[in-house]
């Protein structure tokens, strides 16, 4: 396969960030990134956006009564 186009490279960004690329697809993307500053900036933004969303996932401390509730439900079944 020849060098990646920018459109093909962008399509691989999330797999790259998720460490799901290996072998030839990884080498092709890294070769493209070495030569394309625009795609490097776009990849940086994808990484930034991912961290931004991850940090904002809902969170809540576990209610103290939950374990008792679960134990009682398990006894009933």
């Amino acid at each position: 396969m020849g060098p990646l186009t920018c459109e093909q490279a962008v399509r691989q960004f999330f797999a790259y960030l998720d460490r799901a690329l290996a072998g030839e697809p990884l080498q092709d993307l890294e070769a493209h990134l070495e030569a394309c500053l625009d795609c490097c900036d776009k990849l940086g933004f994808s990484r930034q956006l991912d961290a931004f969303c991850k940090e904002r996932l809902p969170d809540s401390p576990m209610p103290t009564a939950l374990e008792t509730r679960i134990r009682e439900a398990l006894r009933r079944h």
Partner: protein
Amino acid sequence: MSSSTAEVQEDARQRFEALALPHLGQLYRLAVKLKGGAQDAEDLVQETYIRALRAFATLRDPARIRPWLCQILSRLVLDQHRAAPREVAVGDLAEVDRFSLYDLVEQEDPFPYSDSLHRDFLAQFGDGEVRRALLSLPEVYRVPLVLLYVEDLSYRELAELLGCPVGTIMSRLHRARKILERDLWQCAKQRGIVRD
């Protein structure tokens, strides 16, 4: 039920509780991230533990109890969605896959004097707006994305956990982020951060 059957069941329940309850806190936090609200998360975790107890005899490796519980919980979320599908306007999938928030922010240039345009754009959003965007993702995209973020699983592990091919996981995780980008852009338009 004979007394010996009752004893066997009681013994299984006690072994299950000893193995599974230490993971309750992690399961609850995952449930909150998947469902958003505390009450929904509590109900989901309770149902997960009941299903897990019923299927306890099928767990081959007790050391794998946590991923097994995560699997039951995640599939329950997907099953609930199948039973009562929400109206979700994902739109043209090829268009969604090509959506680029980066390009749109650059073209619109809402902060012409900024040295960090894209960072400044993201800083406009409150936590609640980002959470709403995350929670409005259709379950088939939200579940693998939240599992990736929280459990840091590989695509192969996600595929096994959710019972689908690795290629499906890859395309859903790509699309999940693109839908989020699109929703944030819509939010920016509604708030007047960029022109409608």
